[in-house]
């Protein structure tokens, strides 16, 4: 039924209504019953709030230097202690969430856009186009991703925008394979044939009729991808090639954590915990969405 409505473009409203109903009657109740996914989702929401309100919540200016309280262990005044310049670690960690959030979403946005388009084109046209694009995916997968990222960054000035772009440009292959597989099966459906019969152009079929039905698995890999991008950014910043000081990022706070590991455990512990909790939450949410979308999982 849906496919018919879809193909003949009868009433956009009804299709939307169907999706709306699907969301409220199947997807959302299933997701809500998954306690771990809910916890993950709540933490993710909380992180949004924290990064938006960082200037309000943070007890100190994240770059305010205090020569009298250098490397102070956690106290009532400085919950997470202070760093080698006497800056408040809690405030820096709170501000660091902004970097992670930005990197996560922009990098995954880039990766998902590239991967989706390549997957759709490869799956829809098949033949030589498909073979070429999929070999390109294989080639990209041959490069240790971290090596490729580091190599590209070497040629560019370190900046958060380049980091996001490069993480996105090196992370689209999984999405491309996923979307291609979906497209291959959707392409054979009757409503696509119907669309072709009434003279829809290839691009209209791809973007109007296949895309909406191929995106749900992408949602899962996008959520998990955000977690991966946050991890990569923190590793790059930790190595000094990512977000540059004085802008606080969880990775570059850990760099000083490494330098002062013998005197200041708090410099290493708290930013690392922030990464752990964030990545864990995105992963839990992603797995929850996967289960909620999967018709085979019964709960």
């Amino acid at each position, binding site marked *: 039924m849906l496919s018919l409505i879809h193909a003949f473009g009868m009433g956009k409203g009804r299709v939307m209504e169907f999706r709306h109903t699907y969301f409220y009657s199947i997807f959302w109740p299933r997701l809500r019953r998954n306690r771990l996914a809910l916890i993950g989702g709540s933490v993710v929401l909380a992180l949004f709030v924290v990064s938006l309100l960082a200037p309000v919540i943070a007890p100190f200016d994240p770059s305010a230097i205090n020569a009298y309280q250098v490397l102070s262990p956690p106290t009532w005044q400085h919950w997470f202690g202070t760093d080698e310049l006497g800056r408040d670690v809690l405030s820096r960690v709170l501000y660091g969430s902004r970097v992670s959030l930005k990197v996560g979403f922009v990098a995954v946005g880039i990766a998902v856009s590239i991967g989706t388009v390549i997957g759709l084109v490869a799956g829809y046209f098949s033949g030589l186009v498909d073979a070429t694009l999929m070999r390109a995916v294989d080639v990209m997968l*041959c490069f240790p991703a971290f090596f490729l990222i580091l190599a590209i960054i*070497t040629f*560019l000035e370190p900046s958060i925008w380049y980091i996001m772009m490069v993480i996105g440009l090196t992370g689209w292959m999984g999405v491309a394979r996923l979307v291609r597989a979906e497209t291959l099966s959707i392409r054979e459906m009757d409503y696509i044939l119907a669309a072709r019969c009434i003279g829809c152009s290839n691009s209209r079929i791809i973007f109007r009729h296949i895309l909406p039905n191929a995106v749900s698995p992408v949602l899962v890999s996008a959520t998990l991808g955000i977690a991966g991008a946050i991890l990569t950014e*923190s590793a790059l910043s*930790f*190595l000094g090639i990512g977000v540059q000081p004085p802008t606080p990022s969880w990775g570059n706070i*850990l760099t000083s954590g490494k330098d002062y590991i013998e005197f200041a455990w708090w410099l290493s512990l708290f930013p690392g915990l922030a990464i752990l909790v964030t990545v864990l939450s995105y992963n839990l949410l992603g797995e929850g969405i996967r289960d909620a979308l999967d018709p085979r999982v019964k709960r």
Partner: protein
Amino acid sequence: MTTYLVKRFLMLIPLMIGITLITFTVIHLAPGEPVEMQMAMNPKVGKEARERLTKFYGLDKPLHEQYFTWVGHIVRLDLGRSFSSDGRPVVDKIKERLPVTISLNIIALLIEFGLAIPIGILAATRRDTWLDKGITVFVFVGFAVPTFWLALLLMYFFGVKLGWLPISGLHTLGSDSWGTGRYLWDLATHLIMPIMVASFGSLAGLSRYMRSAMLNVISQDYITTARAKGLSERVVIWKHALRNALLPLITLLGFSIPGLIGGSVIFETIFAIPGMGQLFYQGVMSRDYPVVMGILVIGAFLTLIGNLIADLCYAFADPRIRHGEG
């Protein structure tokens, strides 16, 4: 089997061409000629080095000719000379570092698989018990732990706080003059933390994968048959189910190689281990392009070879491919 092998080897050709194309693109990604960039960012590079580079990349020729010149060098394993003050050939530098990285990664792989297989089986056979749930929690946390942070924590506890393990390098200074036993013990204590960090990275994913592969196999008919004819659970799991559950793991072995090689940058840098990852990092920091590009190509080819070996092992282990025509 022969057809399969031929096909598999033929597939390598486009992949190799692709690898060189992408690396070549990366070199030319920067605005302006690579040599100009190198001069601007690294004033230490002298005039002579500049001419050598122009010649090496054939920069006075059109782009496609440059590519073929460059590929010609790569094929002969000529990766150019390092920009660093010693100016040694990149190939020699990599040759000295490669064995360290490869042996560390192989040890890490063995430990990973050695732990992940029993963990996955335990979780699958005790499905939905507290043990399975505990393992799932461990897996999720394992996915989320940044490896460099784990390295820092280990360094703090075992190196600084307890003082049990050395926190950097492969040897204690002056260990060359020690007896073999003491020398090896020294090496082993230096290796414990790096290997823990290296293997922790994929342990979570592997155990999870093993669990689902095992669950998948257990639900099949032949397992029910084995149980129905009265075999003990131990025989059913370890003899009948395990072999089939292990098959997909071989493919995973191939997939985990780029991650391992890439991860070596992090743990080698943190623990100051003189391997390829550290060389790469130093190259990146000092903008030593020949080293960076050389390792990028070598890293990709290593992955390619790793995948090939994994595929061949799979073909050999799976009778459907071994005896089939395909």
